[in-house]
């Protein structure tokens, strides 16, 4: 009984101490990483999806409801990537602070023109996103825009620290601008080269860094590779002398290895998310790793 009383006493204490820091929930690790860049130690951050798992299919765990219920800010993609699991969580969280339109809701795709918006929405084309390709954060210029959104949201909710968030944004922006030179230089020798990916997660990366990533091991988005499709891919790869196959941590690497051994290409482990690869605990480190891995494979 005493324990329960203690626990009950602890509840208001928890909510009081929460005043000091903004409770931020990010659906995906890339948004989480940007939130950390801006918020530093002035936020409590909870990231729902794991960096190594398929972001389309995350379990709507009850514990996520608790995180969302306590959130001051929710950062989500807003482009249907989390469509399979976020809506029921929000329904259960019943948190008006993170409703769309409130300063506590940052939809990362806001103001971003998405690529590959399908003219016709049909599931015969596989797991196509009606609003366009939602894997946009791997473009550093888009990441800057998202970071700015986040800074605006944090500043609105915590005006006292607005200068801090703004300064962090400026710092992040400057870092990205400087890094873009470096990344651009590293990728420039491979301009126009064809790269194969397991899933169509890389149009923004390809666009930014000048490579072509439009052959996929999946015959259609979300549909597992079939032998006949792989035969076709192998023929295309040989014809175009493709040197690299991009796989993400949750993809079946063995399939990529098979294709690689048939074509002489290298399998390159990629991740959309900071933390998805070793040594990538920040956004900049992630792009560093992606660029250096791809450049090494294309040499």
């Amino acid at each position, binding site marked *: 009984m005493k324990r329960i009383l203690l626990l009950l006493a602890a509840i208001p204490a928890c909510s009081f101490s929460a005043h000091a820091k903004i409770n931020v929930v990010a659906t995906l690790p890339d948004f989480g990483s940007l939130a950390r860049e801006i918020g530093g130690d002035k936020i409590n951050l909870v990231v729902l999806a794991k960096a190594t798992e398929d972001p389309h299919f995350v*379990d709507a765990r009850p514990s996520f409801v608790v995180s969302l219920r306590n959130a001051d800010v929710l950062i989500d993609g807003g482009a249907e990537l989390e469509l399979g699991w976020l*809506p*029921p969580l929000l329904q259960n969280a019943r948190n008006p602070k993170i*409703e769309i339109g409130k300063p506590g809701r940052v939809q990362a795709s806001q103001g971003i*023109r998405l690529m590959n918006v399908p003219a016709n929405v049909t599931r015969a084309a596989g797991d196509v996103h009606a609003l366009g390709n939602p894997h946009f954060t791997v473009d550093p210029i888009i990441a800057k825009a998202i970071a700015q959104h986040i800074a605006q949201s944090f500043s609105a909710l915590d005006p006292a620290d607005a200068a801090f968030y703004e300064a962090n944004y400026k710092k992040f922006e400057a870092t990205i601008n400087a890094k*873009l030179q470096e990344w*651009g230089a590293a990728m420039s020798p491979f301009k126009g080269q064809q790269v194969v990916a397991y899933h169509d997660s890389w149009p923004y990366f390809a666009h930014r860094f000048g490579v072509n990533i439009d052959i996929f091991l999946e015959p259609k988005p979300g549909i597992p590779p079939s032998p006949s499709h792989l035969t076709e891919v192998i023929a295309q790869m040989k014809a175009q002398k493709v040197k690299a196959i991009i796989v993400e941590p949750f993809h079946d690497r063995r399939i990529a290895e098979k294709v690689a051994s048939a074509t002489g290409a290298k399998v390159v482990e990629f991740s959309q998310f900071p933390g998805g690869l070793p040594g990538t605990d920040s956004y900049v480190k992630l792009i560093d790793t992606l660029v250096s891995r791809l450049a090494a494979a294309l040499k």
Partner: protein
Amino acid sequence: MKKIILVTLAILPVAAVSAQEATPVASSSPTPAVSNSTPATAADVDALRQQVQSLTETVKALQQQVKDQQAALQKANLTGESGLPQNPEPSPIAAAETPPAPGASAPSSFPTEDTSVVSSTTAPPVSGTPAPGGFPTTDTSVVTSAAPETISSTGAGASLTQPITIGGGKNYMNISLDGLFALAYSSAKDLDHIEVGDHDPQQRGFNARNIELAFDGAVDPYFEGFANIVFKLDNDNETDVEVEEAFMQTTSLPFNLQLKAGQFFAAFGRLNPTHPHTWDFADTPLVNGLFLGPDGLRGVGAQTSWTLPLPWYSQLIFASQNGRGSTGFSFRNPGDDGMFFDRITTDREARGLQDFVWIPRWENSVDLSPTQVVLAGVSGAFGSNETGANSRTQIYGADLLYKWKSSHAEGGFPFVKWQTEFMYRRFQAGRGADESFPVAETFHDWGMYSQVLWGFRKGWVAGIRGDYVDMQDSNFTDDLDRQSRWRISANLTWYPTEFSKIRLQYNQDFLEENFFLSGRQVESVFLQWEFILGAHGAHKF
């Protein structure tokens, strides 16, 4: 549309003005033309100078006009559509616009042909200040006109260029159609007695027991609405229609409260509140079908739920329903032909609160690790039944779910899920409406099922389930539903995508002998298939 009107309005005056201004220019032009043949005089030069001056002024005036119009347009666009809650400046547009590299000065260092990045010479090379003149870029990845407009409160933002789609978050309501079918073989001729659920295969051969239309959406800023209308074909291929669920619920009550009202499934245990197409097996567990009813425990009523302010997930749910008819199976159910457990039922109006079904539930969940979740709940359902004037029913339930999912899951696979439900029912069977039955009895029945699902590779799930129901022996009724029995089931399901599935299931049923009924063993095989059209049904945990 708005834009088109604005653009038209902007262009019209410009055109009109330029037409007016063009006139004096044209009238003054003959002079130099005439003097072309003669040598240039000072007067000629003066005339020319004046002409050039007037032309320059005209051009300036036009430029200014165009600029003004553009500014007005820009302003209208931005203020009209900006969804950014606070501080729209410096806008993300500018951030996205800002060239990442000083394209002009160091063109070789950053290999892009992106016009927004390279060719913009007016903007300062690296800074956060907005680029003047809006966003004249063609870079499809970066550009931004305004915040996306959203209609659905739960749906995602939609871009303005999108066509209206069903299920794309651009409409007021999500619609989906789900078709669930089965081809059944059974060693029993009366498969409809062996299978205890109304949506289970009911006859040898083909079955279409669950064709479901589902609607949901935000009603307004305060409510969400849901409806599931089920069509099913009976064994004579006649169509039955069920309003399985139709309810509204609040979205913005304070203190983590939620109210729900309408026709809905009772939140009793894990399986009861869910729709058949989400089930992991082709049929209902025995205990659900025999205690909560073939259609599950559902009815017209109201429910309130409260998530407790605790560090872990803990929710209290409390509902009240009429509990009348076959969807209130163990409660105010008149039964088939006015009989239940061989008693003539009363089928009366509610006399007071005691005749409603009261359904409390408390569920808790914790994450054991980043890959493991446990959810445990206890439920109850209390009300009266129709077998006597003061006969009452109590059902108690406990449920446990454990799930492991790989930290490198693709499409949600691989995973292992273990789910168990236990129920105990105390049923006071009276002597019937006219006291014609020889005795009143109190049945203490219990049952449970336990199932393990293993998603061993993307799209593939193997499952095994054990079922047991213990019905207290009665020497006074030979009701088929009072036979103790157990079942073992195994299945294999292939999900080509999350919108279709094909399942093969084997059932072995053992019905225990009692005073009236002989024991028997039944084997059944089901081939089940399903399709989903329309809105992506999000997966509840």
